[in-house]
């Protein structure tokens, strides 16, 4: 086996090992852990439903059910948010390894992000199925578009997680700043409200949010059944790839120095 092939085998084996560990210790280690992964978004969905349809009595969902409208968008957001938060601090959990063994550190971040996204995607499918069975207007054929969209999201999230995790090694505040920033971003993204409710003068600003674009595409596909590809899809894929490349570049610049600062 030549050096590159051996390294490839090793990196795959490491990814599989870390990925398994992330899943087992975080979610499957306890029954409640797995349940929480599903219960948390479900509870949020229920609360939002209560607040927006019972308290504020918001209308203007273009005749769509609020539950279906929010569920389709909320899950990818929570998945991305959790993947970013866990990915940012993932290197700390492998400090002992980073200090003593030579291996590509980005595998740790990939495994952390992948474990979160895979699990959340499974939850997404389950919720879509349940909503569909209970009569909500979900178009399951929309998954043909939704799955590639999740892949684009995964690439972008992985790139951001690489960037944030590398910075986190040196500057511990990253993790603490991330939480409120994500919270604010969530409310600035048309997840809980349709873009049409945003005042005209602000609409173009909110619409410029790439995640808002993703949410819109998911709704088009899963609620309205629009399955055709759009020129924007290619742009989004390019943006995601650029985010990933930037994240990886920063990560590789900093990773030779992790050994001295991690932990």
């Amino acid at each position, binding site marked *: 086996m030549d050096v590159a092939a051996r390294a490839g085998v090793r990196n795959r*084996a*490491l990814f599989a*090992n870390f990925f398994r560990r992330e899943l087992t210790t975080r979610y499957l280690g306890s029954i409640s852990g797995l349940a929480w992964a599903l219960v948390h978004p479900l509870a949020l969905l229920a609360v939002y439903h209560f607040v927006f349809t019972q308290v504020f009595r918001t209308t203007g969902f273009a005749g769509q059910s609020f539950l279906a409208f929010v569920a389709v968008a909320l899950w990818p957001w929570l998945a991305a948010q959790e993947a970013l938060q866990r990915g940012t601090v993932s290197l700390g959990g492998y400090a002992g390894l980073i200090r003593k063994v*030579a291996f590509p550190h980005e595998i740790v971040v990939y495994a952390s992000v992948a474990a979160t996204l895979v699990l959340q995607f499974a939850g997404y499918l389950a919720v879509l199925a349940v909503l569909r069975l209970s009569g909500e207007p979900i178009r399951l054929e929309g998954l043909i578009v939704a799955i590639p969209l999740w892949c684009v999201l995964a690439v972008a999230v992985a790139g951001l997680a690489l960037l944030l995790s590398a910075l986190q090694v*040196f*500057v511990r505040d990253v993790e603490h700043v991330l939480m409120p920033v994500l919270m604010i971003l969530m409310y600035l993204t048309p997840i809980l409200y349709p873009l049409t409710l945003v005042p005209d003068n602000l609409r173009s600003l909110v619409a410029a949010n790439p995640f808002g674009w993703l949410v819109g595409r998911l709704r088009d596909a899963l609620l309205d059944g629009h399955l055709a590809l759009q020129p924007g899809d290619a742009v989004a894929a390019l943006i995601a790839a650029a985010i990933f490349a930037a994240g990886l570049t920063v990560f590789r610049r900093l990773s030779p120095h992790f050994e001295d600062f991690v932990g």
Partner: protein
Amino acid sequence: MSAEPVLLRLAGVGKDYAKVESRGGRLRLVYDLLRGHGAQHVFRALDSVSLEMRRGESLGVIGENGAGKSTLLKIIAGVVKPTRGEVERHGRVGALLELGSGFHPEYTGLANIDLAAALLGLAPSEIAAKRDEIVAFADLGDHIDDPIKNYSSGMVVRLGFAVATALAPDILITDEVLAVGDESFQKKCIAWMEEFLAGGGTLLLCSHGMYHVQKLCRHALWLKDGRVERYGAASDVTQAYLAYHEEKSASAKAPATPAAAATAGIYAITSLALDPPERIAQGAALTVRGDVYTPDGRTPVVLVGVVRADGTPVYGVATDMDGQPPVRVASDRFAFELVLPALALLPGKYFVRAHALDPEGVRLFDHVEREIIVTGHTRELGIVRLAHRWNGAEE
């Protein structure tokens, strides 16, 4: 020997560590690193280290704490990227750095075996075949199913050594492994390393125990303040290293003694030398000579004793016991010389101590000691060889 392929070559290798104190300093460091500049404030941990190892060689790395040994081993293992110089590595490197050798504290022993195998690039099928062997060598019983964080340091080393050895690396790097672990496991490790070397394995050993370096390594490298102080045959380098320590401890004591003696007006040993100086073959003659200071011109009593490295006294004798007072060489100075014609000590590390006592041989004022290693091959047990014979044995 030179026909063997080169497994490892370091040329002018150096490593700087960034020094940052404040949070702002860390931001600044990230900025510098991202721009591709080095850090601004650095600590030079290692500088201009060059070495070469061929298959089947064994190299011991010695030096004081903070000399850069661990940094060097980390660079060789690939964990640390050198700031300067080139590292060329061929073959699989197995490293036991400090204790853990890259274990994950939350994993169980078994899960860590799988992790270590994955890190070395073994396929799951390959590791399955090795797992029983590793478990047997580590000999941890049921603890193999416990998380590593609950292990004692000795247990971690056992598992680390078992893993590093079972995975058949081309180069094995061990850092102070032999300092931990109980005696029987140490012996097992040494036996394994000897076999590994005999079978053509390549070993890089870092140890404070000169004994291990001398026993296992053909070459040695002495690091001092991040630079190579000496690199060559293990016996030469370890002797030079021991001599350096000898001088260091002597110079730490010697200036204090005459000055203190002069002001405090006490009897003091001002010099002490052994002949041969550091190592002596079992049964050879050992000469202990030195000078003793007297504050009042009277003849002091000198007591010379031998203690084992752990402090157990073996034998002691004073000038007044034998009626052989030291010889006056100056108004305030006396010389003494003691010969032990056939040293009965069994191989090992000992200290020779000289004490200065008042002329009455009652009050003990000062002592100076020198380390000596008795060499030899014997299976006898204990500290000294007692005169003996077996009666009725057949010729």
